[in-house]
């Protein structure tokens, strides 16, 4: 099938230069001229970009490549298993993939199977949407001790990302886990550790993670934040959910809830901060009535920053986190309240640490990259050749999603982000920047298939993912789960080629 497509589109590609017709091209009612677009990454940013591109330009041919055999990025590998409603968006993305002008090429890694310059030569526009697949580090002593993981790794593990299915975090040697950070991802991992396993069993969590969690001895989870309850980086929705967990006692120090005039000011200006603070105050005063023996505890630790990881007696695994007490000071430049250390320290014993202090994007060869911010410098989605004031635009190169804005925001944020990037592409195309009449060498899909064949890369088309999908759903049915994810590279490839 791939072959047939190959010849057909090659023929179209050859004809294309003959069809160039002045300023109306791409908008004429008859055969609109093709605009070849490659989107790298099939998460929300990639799919929303494809959707807006297809709607915005009748001649757009959009190819989405992803390094995994499975599409949807963090909707599959990030969003928590107990958030099925958030994943409904894949229905919409699947409709995009079903569009005749859109193709999915899974199992194709930018930077390994294909280079940026190859894509650049093949497509009129290349949109980078490959997310943020690395972690910020704290840069404090002991960060390499066993039992310390980034939240990203832990999340990929329980969600069955094939790169992390072997993580095997030890949940059995301790009763305390420390989560560094208080954003939504921190709340996700804390909730997964604490949630009653019978509830988790009916989600799409991987079976090995469920087993490990069933055997877990962790009873106390500490959520550590450098600043106070007014500055907690989570959303009310996630907070409300974790505060309402069955059989979990919420522990918040009342004294941490005292606010300063600066805090009050922050809350006046931010509806979300105000509502998060209100939820925390309510939870602090609720003092859960009945105390069961097996009750678990969730501690919110505010005004603390980690300064050192202390090994256990064996010297190689984590035994405690040293925390420094902080106070808030107004930053003179930004006006924001920042946490500064007080020189007062305490040790918090634990056998597991999950660092949830932020994801970070990875650079690829030939792509301008802002190392400080971990994003690609851009102007409304147009890639800039540097982050300096005199930067110029890289023709035909765009960025969207976490790679463009940094690792924040919800799925919907990527929708608006994609609209901005697509608007830039359409504007550039109208100006004739993307398809100068002299340039007829961009064959799009035909060219991509040629390169993949040359390099012997076996890509997984969307129909391959649909096979994986139905196998997973079938396996899930047997266990009363929505799906049982296939979690190894081998398994995924086999399923796709069934």
């Amino acid at each position: 099938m791939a072959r047939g497509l190959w010849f057909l589109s090659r023929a179209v590609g050859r004809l294309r230069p003959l069809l160039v017709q002045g300023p109306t091209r791409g908008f004429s009612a008859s055969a609109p001229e093709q605009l070849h677009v490659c989107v790298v990454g099939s998460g929300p940013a990639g799919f929303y970009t494809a959707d807006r591109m297809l709607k915005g330009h009748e001649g757009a041919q959009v190819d989405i490549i992803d390094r995994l055999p499975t599409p949807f990025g963090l909707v599959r590998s990030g969003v928590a298993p107990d958030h099925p409603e958030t994943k409904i968006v894949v229905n919409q993305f699947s409709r995009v993939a079903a569009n005749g002008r859109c193709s999915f090429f899974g199992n194709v890694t930018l930077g390994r199977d294909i280079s940026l310059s190859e894509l650049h030569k093949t497509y009129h526009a290349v949109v980078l949407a490959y997310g943020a697949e690395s972690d910020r580090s704290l840069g404090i002593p002991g960060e390499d001790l066993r039992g310390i993981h980034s939240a990203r790794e832990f999340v990929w593990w329980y969600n069955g990302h094939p790169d992390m299915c072997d993580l095997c975090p030890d949940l059995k040697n301790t009763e305390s886990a420390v989560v560094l950070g208080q954003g939504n991802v921190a709340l996700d991992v804390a909730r997964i550790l604490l949630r009653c396993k019978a509830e988790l069993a009916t989600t799409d969590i991987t079976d090995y993670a469920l087993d490990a969690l069933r055997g877990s001895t962790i009873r106390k989870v500490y959520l550590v934040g450098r600043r106070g309850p007014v500055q907690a980086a989570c959303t009310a929705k996630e907070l409300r959910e974790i505060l309402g967990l069955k059989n979990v006692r919420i522990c918040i120090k009342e004294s941490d809830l005292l606010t300063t005039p600066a805090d009050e000011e922050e809350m006046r200006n931010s509806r979300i901060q105000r509502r998060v603070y209100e939820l925390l105050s309510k939870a602090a005063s609720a003092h859960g009535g009945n105390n069961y023996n097996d009750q678990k505890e969730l501690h919110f630790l505010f005004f603390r920053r980690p300064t050192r990881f202390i090994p256990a007696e064996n010297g190689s695994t984590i035994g405690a986190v040293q925390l420094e007490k902080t106070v808030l000071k107004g930053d003179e430049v930004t006006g924001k309240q920042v946490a500064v250390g007080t020189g007062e320290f305490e040790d918090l014993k634990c056998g597991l640490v999950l660092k949830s202090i932020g994801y970070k994007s990875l650079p690829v060869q030939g792509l301008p990259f802002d190392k400080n911010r971990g994003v690609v410098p851009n102007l409304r989605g147009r890639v800039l050749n540097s982050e300096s004031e005199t930067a110029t635009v890289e023709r035909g190169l765009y960025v969207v999603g976490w790679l463009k804005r940094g690792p924040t925001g919800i799925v919907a944020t990527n929708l608006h982000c994609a609209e901005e990037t697509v608007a830039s592409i359409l504007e550039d195309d109208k100006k004739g920047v993307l398809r100068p009449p002299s340039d007829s060498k961009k064959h799009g899909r035909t060219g991509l298939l040629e390169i993949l064949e040359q390099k012997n890369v076996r890509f997984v088309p969307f129909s391959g993912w649909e096979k994986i999908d139905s196998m997973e759903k079938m396996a899930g049915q047997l266990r009363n789960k929505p799906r049982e994810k296939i979690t190894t590279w081998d398994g995924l490839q086999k399923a796709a080629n069934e």
Partner: protein
Amino acid sequence: MFPRISRLGARLLREPRAETRAGNLLNSGGILYQGHVNRHSTPVVTPTVLSLRNVLLSTATSGDQDESSQAKDKISVTFVNKDGSEKTISVPIGMSMLEAAHENDIELEGACEGSLACSTCHVIVMDVNYYNKLEDPADEENDMLDLAFGLTETSRLGCQVIAKPELDGMRLALPVATRNFAVDGYVPKPH
């Protein structure tokens, strides 16, 4: 099956007003659960419940109706698109604005199909008098509104606004995203 049904029940109590487009497709009561499970790639509880609700609704409103009662069964709602263009549609009582928009090809997003998990169905009620005729948003709706783009004093989630007679003539605007993602401190010069 039992745990699933009781979960459905709990949901029904918590989110009695939610509606979905997906739900509307599944209106044959008997195969509800099965059909639903197959249709979604992630099993989602809400749409099923909602389809139940739709079944009830459609039986309640079906049958012979004369002109006047039909007029009462529907209200007129005007959507103001991002580009300022307008479209007036008639919406059956009991239907959500999200569903109504989709049935009429209005570009209102509904990423989570009405299960209060996305905020993409954000609409702005253009007249505060109409806004005041709506029941106050539930905590869960407010949680999602926190994250909506271009939030205003009269913002609501389209999937939670259900047509009722008092809302006849209401005007809803689709929010225009104004935020510039490129800006975070500096704006380099384009060349």
